[in-house]
């Protein structure tokens, strides 16, 4: 088995004949924090959607621990240990914070089909353990005081924390964060950086798209830069930062619209 937990090999994805991802390859090591940057509309979120099974790329391979996962349905991807957050927050808005995080426990819960109808001692044990885990996560993300509040009623920064808690509740091996700092203020971003490092320390591999360069440069160990669906640069943060191709892509794309 290779040292890479996730390998993306020559992946291409088209929408109505237009190329969204073009022959993209990258390798993520276990335990790494891997950054993906690029101008708006470059295909970053599309890549995440391909990894998590929401889209199926037309060409190439996506290998998870050496096994092809391209075309696998999203819920099976989650069962494999790949969990994500969304650029446009997708919480269960009317449900409480605790219930939102509990959704992450779904794949860990051992309840049998008949437990939806009748409860057994094993059910009570399982239910209690999962809610306790939710409690731990709420403590970890400082969410305990909002436990019963509908997630949709809370501020943007708190909602981002709930989304991460929800994904983490599933005990992922790979956590995919799609612009986790978007819309956060400076304090919240700093807090987020600390949180991400703590998550890494638990042994979770992290892939993230982020526009906050300061945060990306300080957190990530390896970066791939995408523009027009293709890789234009890759390497250590310090290298990528000074790569003239990258600088050009960012300056040349100021006019681009958000289109992901």
């Amino acid at each position, binding site marked *: 088995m290779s040292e890479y937990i996730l390998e993306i090999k020559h992946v291409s994805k088209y929408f109505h004949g237009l190329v969204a991802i073009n022959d993209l390859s990258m390798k993520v090591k276990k335990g790494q924090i891997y950054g993906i940057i690029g101008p708006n509309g470059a295909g970053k*979120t599309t890549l995440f*959607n391909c990894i998590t099974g*929401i889209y199926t790329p037309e060409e190439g391979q996506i290998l998870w621990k050496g096994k092809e996962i391209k075309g696998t349905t999203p819920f099976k991807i989650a069962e494999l240990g790949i969990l994500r957050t*969304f650029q*446009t927050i997708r919480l269960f808005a009317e449900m409480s914070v605790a219930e939102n995080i509990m959704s992450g426990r779904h794949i860990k819960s051992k309840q049998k089909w008949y437990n939806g109808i009748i409860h057994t001692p094993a059910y009570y044990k399982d239910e209690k353990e999962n809610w306790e885990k939710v409690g731990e996560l709420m403590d970890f993300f400082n969410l305990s005081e909002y436990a019963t509040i509908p997630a949709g009623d809370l501020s943007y920064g708190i909602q981002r924390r709930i989304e991460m808690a929800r994904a983490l509740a599933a005990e992922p091996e790979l956590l995919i964060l799609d612009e986790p700092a978007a819309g956060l203020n400076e304090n919240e971003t700093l807090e987020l950086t600390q949180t991400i490092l703590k998550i890494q320390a638990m042994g979770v591999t992290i892939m993230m798209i982020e526009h906050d360069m300061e945060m990306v440069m300080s957190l990530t160990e390896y970066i791939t830069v995408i523009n027009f669906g293709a890789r234009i640069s890759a390497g250590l943060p310090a290298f990528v930062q000074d790569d003239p191709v990258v600088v050009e892509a960012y300056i040349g794309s100021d006019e681009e619209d958000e289109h992901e």
Partner: protein
Amino acid sequence: MDIFLQQIVNGLTIGSLYALVALGYTMVYGVMRLINFAHGDLVALSAFVGLTVYTQIFGEGITSLVAVIAVFMFTAAIIAVVGVLLERLAYRPLRTAPRLSAVVSALGAGLVIQNAVMLIWGPNMKIFPSEIFPSTIWEIGGIVVTFTQVMILGISAMLMVTLFFFINRTKMGTAIRAVAIDQDAAKLMGINVNRIIMVIFIIGSALGAVAGLFIGAYYRGITFDMGWMYGLNAFVAAIMGGIGNIPGAMLGGLLLGLFNAMITGYISSQWAETFTFILLIVILVFRPTGILGETVAEKV
């Protein structure tokens, strides 16, 4: 072979009626994402209004073209007004509510119209005047075609072609399409969404009204609760074609009409609806959004 051709004529006739009604469903759905369950009852209402307009205002026995056109125009106008009122009172207050709330409101509105018809015109079947169209019959190679059928086919085709050009070639049509794709963006571009929705209800209801009058003229017997049956068939036609899609409603209507006629002609009318729904479900299993419907991927 004669049965086959005869059933094609009959199928195209009923299919045109389904298509006219289906257009009302599909246009409302396209803009509001709402199944207007009251639409079928508007069609039934139209037949009764037409009956009254014809007998009370113009007097029985008048066959002059002018009078018939006047009945159609007048009835369509009344039904269009009812359609606009329906939207104002029952749907507009629910535009931001959960989608199913508007569905319940539509079901309620259907009950109101249906029972109003029953209270006004009575629970028994009424007979639509036969003399509204000449009783001319043509026989072409063993196939019987009535004047009414020719009128239904001709007028429906004309209305549908007109609608097609209106939607695709005029400024208002472009605005309608814009609102169907993205209401908020259309609003930002200066399109008056409320006005567009009003236009949709006027057109949809008027087309339904014409269908209602034709149903009266073609089948003669009209009942207060017949809207459910015609509405359901037309709604199925709209779904088959891909709801929200205007050519889809036309295609779905004609297809369903022909299919129905073949089942009635060759198998049995007792099983007509069963076969209708089997066809629908088979279509949906292979094309989950209907024949011409597009799959719109949700943005993630």
